């Protein structure tokens, strides 16, 4: 049997709830009813309630069937997901909102993530399914969100706060523009197993895969060497060659980045900047990481003005003040010396004491 190909995804119009089809492109305004609940009103006067629910992203088919049942009961068989792995129930009958919330509450589904809250952390695969991670993804996210749960389900922050995690510097989750980014890092070059390299690896391909040109052939021994000073621990060589694993229980861990922003509201999008260069992997609950993130979030929340995102606050008070207020020690790793470094150096004596 010839398989059909290139037919594309399901057509979205077949997936839309009828009320959305009817009012498509004709929404007039929305309100934040309470944490996790939005109310959108159309020009026609019709309204739809959105109830946003945090999910762990890694879910079983049983979970999917369960939320489908909820959607059948309260939302005429329709639901959607957001760009940050949240689940959204779309309720066209206002009468059903409170019963739905009661049901979700009873069954421990966290409702929140809208408004001045922490939304669901975008994150990657980690030890669950990738070959280059320097840390786990789902485990840290679970530990951090257990700790910061109150900020997901309630409005207690000056503005949005987006936390993201990527488990190696490939940054699949594109975490580099988050208010708080948790990034797995390796600190040791690959340890070469020359027998595996000889048996299994295409040496020219491995050399070509290295972005910094750190790998050199060693033709005499039919293997290769790594110039450790040039290695930036990206793992591309391990992608090409199983004889070059990078993972190391002591070398691997987590770095924390702050002040990034995606939207253009008020100020242009910004990158997150390195605040803590290294914290150890300490599973299952990574206490060093959870307390560092809480400290940063709460220091910002105490000091920022209303609507001021983490990065906007830091720009206003200055990085010197950020390090003072958070009590995070400033270390030499935080000073850039990669390709675009001089842009980050200060050229004026107008800084704060």
């Amino acid at each position: 049997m010839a398989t059909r190909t290139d037919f594309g995804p399901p057509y979205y119009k077949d997936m839309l709830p009828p009320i959305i089809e009817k009012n498509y492109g004709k929404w007039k305004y929305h309100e934040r009813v309470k944490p996790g609940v939005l109310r959108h009103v159309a020009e026609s006067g019709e309204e739809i309630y959105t109830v946003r629910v945090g999910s762990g992203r890694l879910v079983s088919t049983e979970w999917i069937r369960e939320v489908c049942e909820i959607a059948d009961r309260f939302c005429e068989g329709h639901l959607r997901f957001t760009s940050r792995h949240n689940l959204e129930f779309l309720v066209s009958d206002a009468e059903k909102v409170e019963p739905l919330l009661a049901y979700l509450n009873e069954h421990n589904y966290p409702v929140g993530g809208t408004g001045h809250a922490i939304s669901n952390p975008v994150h990657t695969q980690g030890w669950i399914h990738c070959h280059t991670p320097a840390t786990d993804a789902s485990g840290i996210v679970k530990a951090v969100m257990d700790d910061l749960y109150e900020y997901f389900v309630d409005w207690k922050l000056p503005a949005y706060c987006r936390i993201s995690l990527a488990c190696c510097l490939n940054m699949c989750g594109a975490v580099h523009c988050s208010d708080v980014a948790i990034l797995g890092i390796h600190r040791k070059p690959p340890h070469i197993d020359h027998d595996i390299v000889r048996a299994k690896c295409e040496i020219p391909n491995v050399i070509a895969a290295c972005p910094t040109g750190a790998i050199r052939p060693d033709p005499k021994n039919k293997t290769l060497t790594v110039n450790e000073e040039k290695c930036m621990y990206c793992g591309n060589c391990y992608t090409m060659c199983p004889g070059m694993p990078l993972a190391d229980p002591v070398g691997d861990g987590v770095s924390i980045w702050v002040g990034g922003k995606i939207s253009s509201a008020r100020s242009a999008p910004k990158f997150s900047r390195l605040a803590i260069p290294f914290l150890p992997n300490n599973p299952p609950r990574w206490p060093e990481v959870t307390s560092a993130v809480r400290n940063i979030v709460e220091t910002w929340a105490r000091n920022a003005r209303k609507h001021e995102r983490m990065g906007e606050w830091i720009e206003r008070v200055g990085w010197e003040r950020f390090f003072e207020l958070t009590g995070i020690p400033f270390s030499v790793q935080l000073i850039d010396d990669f390709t675009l470094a001089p842009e980050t150096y200060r050229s004026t004596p107008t800084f704060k004491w």
Partner: protein
Amino acid sequence: MTESETPLLDELEKGPWPSFVTEMKRAAKKKESAHDLLRQLERSYNDRIGHWKHGGIVGVRGYGGGVIGRYSDLPEEFPGVAEFHTLRVNMPSGWFYTTEKLRQLCDVWDKHGSGLTNLHGATGDIILLGAPTEALQPCFDDLAEIGFDLGGSGSDMRTPSCCVGPARCEYACIDTLEVLYQITMEFQDELHRPMFPYKSKIKISGCPNDCVAAIPRSDIAVVGTWRDNIQVDPAAVAAYANDGIDIQEEVVDLCPTQCMHWDASTKTLTIEDRECNRCMHCINLMPKALAVGKERGATILVGGKAPIVHGALLSWVVVPFMKMEPPYDEFKDLVRRIWEWWDENGKMRERLGELINRMGMRAFLKAMNLPPSPAMIRAPRANPYYFWDPEEVK
């Protein structure tokens, strides 16, 4: 009581946030592969390193991407995940589903795979997590039966994505869902068969809030905007003021262009629209009273990417305004020309942004036949090292 196999992971079943460990255990009851995944993860929690390796070409007939090959480095200990490949399945625009469709998907995945998924992956695909090599083709055949196609991986167009847009957001300046569907269908070949120097991503947001992170995350970002005036409902503005928003402090003072004026005595808001840069702040705060303009379209930005290899880039404006009307030929044509230029000039693993940086924005604009504009820059150059083209010296 028997001792738990996974004492460390069990810790992550506690606490209020939904537990992925609970989900893995639910799948593990039905599937040996999910059970071994759980055990291997426990091993990683003990060892503090991952246990996966890369390699071996896997996939389905006719496609070059869409499947991620993954093998355990401890296959004897965890035979259920000796081969544990991922299928990336193309989601519908805006991640809307009927429960019927999702149940069909569950049926297929219960039949062929581990029963574990990511809803969704970071690029937006439905990630079906874990199936052995021999299950891939039958699984795809069954997916095709229920109308789900694969997404992208490797050096191809990655599965593009969009925000909820006009389906449920009054800020949408363009029909993000339709644009997404159109380009996905137009570029099926580019999505399914890797042929580029590297990956290429397109993301579409309906307004400058950029809810799908198009600017930081895509090579080609489409961000809705408008050209005329913000629509103001004066009575609704006054109502917000009465309702407790401090319009001077929370709206006017935070306007980045200082183009708004609030007269508290008459409760009148005036906007000098020519000076507004359409940042969305005021509209975000008062969606009942302020609305995006009527002459709508999109700004196109290119070159965004994560840090590998030469550092992270945010996308740069190259088309200040494009109308974005169906069938979106102007946009599709631009995408084609961009890919052609990149394909011709890009080195292996060089993303579009890096290529533009290497060849110069000037070369890009010339190849695309796009006129230079101050909308493209934060500031003009501060050095005199411009290499004059003899054509320009006359």
